């Protein structure tokens, strides 16, 4: 049955070399319409003034590395997950903890807040994504109403609700992404194409709302059609794992952060990389990236414990923020853009504004 796979005149080697030659041709095509660099176009944009952002809240309560966080649509609540299996929901404005649940696994690398604010999703080394409805009933154990939604064959690295509480998109160390129906746990669509672990994903803010981007250990960022499961566009310019991807607010581009210590901007209409955000003194990997509301600033958390702020248009580094005492593992701008939150292996989360 194994040899059933090959057609006549097709060998593994021939497929591989065909792929390589097509990649070369694709790069040529992409280069043809590249008539100007972003920083050139941005020359006439006014430079940014003095940049002052400080830690406004420090959330202490996790007993181990914070791995992931997500904002609630109410602009102040967040959910965070850590290596010791704890998932906590905070009102980060008052720093009160509102809910806490302990997962039956360690390394909870993914967590997400439902759009309604009534549930959270999380997962990690259990290879699953589970949904917990948030309850204030003191007599109810949160873990009792837990719903197992996604099943992968390796760790869960990222998850996100789509436009409603009823569908979840997941990324996994098994090299695939998948779309699930929350109520039934049914697999609605799966996305194959990465050659290694998928580490991150982000949903596109588009009018038709049908695509998302993922990044992985194969150094590729891939854009998918959620309906057909097909890869629509792929970019392979990073030199190491892509830890984080995030759409530009207009939906026409996305940024990525990688272990090669750079962040990059890819334009979807031009179909190419259009900017690299790097500095010789920055040698540790970028673990998470997010844009400010206007897309002018890119915040990136790094494995050297810092956060660098980049001018997206001019390509220069605007500021470096110190404060965390270990790797920054996760970073998200709040839904109304008033602040961003960073989570770190130093067990804390910080809200900056």
């Amino acid at each position, binding site marked *: 049955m*194994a*040899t059933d*796979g*090959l057609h006549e005149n097709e060998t*593994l080697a021939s*497929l*591989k070399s065909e792929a390589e030659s097509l990649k070369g041709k*694709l790069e040529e095509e992409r280069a043809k*319409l590249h*008539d*100007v660099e972003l920083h050139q*176009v*941005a020359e006439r944009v006014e430079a940014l003034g003095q940049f002052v*952002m400080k830690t*406004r809240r420090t959330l202490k309560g996790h007993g181990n590395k914070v791995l992931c966080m997500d904002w609630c649509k*109410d*602009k*102040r*609540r967040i959910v965070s997950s850590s290596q010791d299996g704890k998932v906590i929901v905070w009102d980060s*404005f008052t720093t009160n903890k509102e809910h806490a649940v302990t997962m039956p696994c360690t390394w909870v*690398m993914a967590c997400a807040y439902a759009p309604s*604010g009534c549930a959270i999703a999380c997962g990690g080394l259990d290879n699953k994504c589970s949904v917990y409805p948030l309850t*204030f009933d003191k007599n109810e154990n949160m873990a009792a109403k837990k719903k197992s939604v996604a099943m992968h064959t*390796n760790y869960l690295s990222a998850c996100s609700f789509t436009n409603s509480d009823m569908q979840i998109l997941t990324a996994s*160390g*098994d*090299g695939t992404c998948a779309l699930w129906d*929350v*109520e*039934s746990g049914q697999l609605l669509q799966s996305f194959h*194409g*990465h050659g*290694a*672990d998928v580490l991150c994903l982000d949903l596109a*803010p588009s*009018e*038709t*709302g049908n695509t998302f981007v993922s990044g992985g250990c194969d150094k590729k960022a891939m854009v998918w059609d959620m309906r057909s499961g097909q890869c629509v566009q792929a970019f392979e310019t990073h030199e190491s*794992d892509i830890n984080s991807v995030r759409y*530009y607010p207009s939906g*026409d581009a996305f940024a990525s952060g990688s*272990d090669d210590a750079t962040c990059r901007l890819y*334009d979807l*209409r*031009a*179909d190419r990389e259009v900017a690299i955000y790097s500095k*010789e003194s920055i*040698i540790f*990997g970028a673990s998470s990236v997010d844009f*400010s*509301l*206007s897309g002018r*600033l890119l915040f990136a958390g790094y494995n*050297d414990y*810092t956060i660098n702020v980049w001018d*997206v*248009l001019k390509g220069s580094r605007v500021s470096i923020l*110190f404060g965390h005492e270990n790797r920054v593992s996760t970073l998200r701008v709040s839904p109304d853009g*008033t602040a961003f939150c960073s989570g770190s292996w130093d067990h804390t989360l910080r809200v900056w*504004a």
Partner: protein
Amino acid sequence: MAAGPAPHGGHRRAQRPHLSKMERMVVSMQDPDQGVKMRSQRLLVTVIPHAVTGNDVMEWLIQKYCITEAEALHLGTLLVRHGYLYPLRDPCHLELRLDETPYRFQVRLNWEQTPYFWMSTLWPAAELDYAIYLAKKNIRKRGGLVDHEKEHYDQLHRKISHTWDLVVMQAREQLRAAKQRRKGDRLVIACQEQTYWLVNRPPPGVPSVLEQGPQWGSCTAGRVQMPTGPFQTKTVDFYRREVECLRKALGRARVKSSVCLEAYLKFSSQRGPHDPIMSGCLPSNPWVTDNDTYWAMNAPSAAVPTRLRVEQWAFSFRELLEDPVGRAHFMDFLRKEFSGENLSFWEACEELRHGGQAQVPALVDAVYQQFLAPGAARWVNIDSRTMERTLVGLGRPHRHVLDDAQLHIYMLMKKDSYPRFLKSDLYKDLLAEAVVPPETKRRVFPFMRKPRHSSPSPALLPASASGEPSGGDGEA
């Protein structure tokens, strides 16, 4: 040290790009002409050559990378914490001190002289080696082990008790050999060793720089490259898919870079005033002043929207629809034009697309009856070709069966109703009546800190009042 040269570190190095970058940095720091200023340091009665001070390192980093003191100190500290630089005095804490403490660069690979080298070439620091190190420390000075070292020592003793004699023997031998060295060399090697173990067995409370996430060493998909066997089919699929994807990509229509990049400039300048981090927000940023009025004024169902919020409805049709207040006003406008069913249809399609799988058949049927069936109460006007295609698809309902029809109606609204809405008196009045909050400055006196208001969790509200926009236009 346990016998054996380092195994080929190439595999590890490929997985940790920051280490190769650090090494390049450290190599250029030792360049005889362009590197850090080196001097001979006097330490007690010995003189140590090729030493550098913390300040020298910082100066060099500032010059070379055009960074601030703070960043240089941070970077220098990381170099020490990874063991590429080690202090020649009191290596209990790995930090970059800015006093006269001398530092030296760890050697790359020099098995004969010193067994301690760069992190990327290290093999996992063996338990046996650590046991020997601790035994040496214990022998050299009774009570020389600190708490966590004592714990490790006891643990190791239990674990490898059958070869403990070997450990003690090795320890004594190494101590004897050390005594034969010159005092300066002895000191240097001792500091190297101590730094090495601080990096590989950090004391409690100090983060280990060796820790990695679980993605290291678990990749499964597509990596197996066996010539034959059960994995071959998978790899064949992988390349076939990739070739297919690449072929499609080649046929893709692309836009000139200049056009795309100009769009960013336009987008960012238009949104700048709406970006609280860029332009602040009125009355104030809640995180900065602890005053949450901004959130109250911009609540999803605020009675009187702010100026900026109403302006944003003109940026794109999507943003108008995403705002529940904007959408409600747009619905009012459509009703006046007797095309409210378009928006209702669009909303129903959204509910189908993003709803639960179990609801699909019922929803499809409801939408058909209400909007698409001949003589339907709220019939929407779709072109005949789309309608035909949709009707065929309805035979086997799935969540995407109305996508084409939905897109058609969406474009109709976007290209026709939306521009007219923006020009309408309704919209102009909304802009005129919109609120512009006055600025509230941050309190000057910190002890008058306002208590931070808590807010009800969305999980507490009854379902109908949750963040989802209410779709109905109230028609019977």
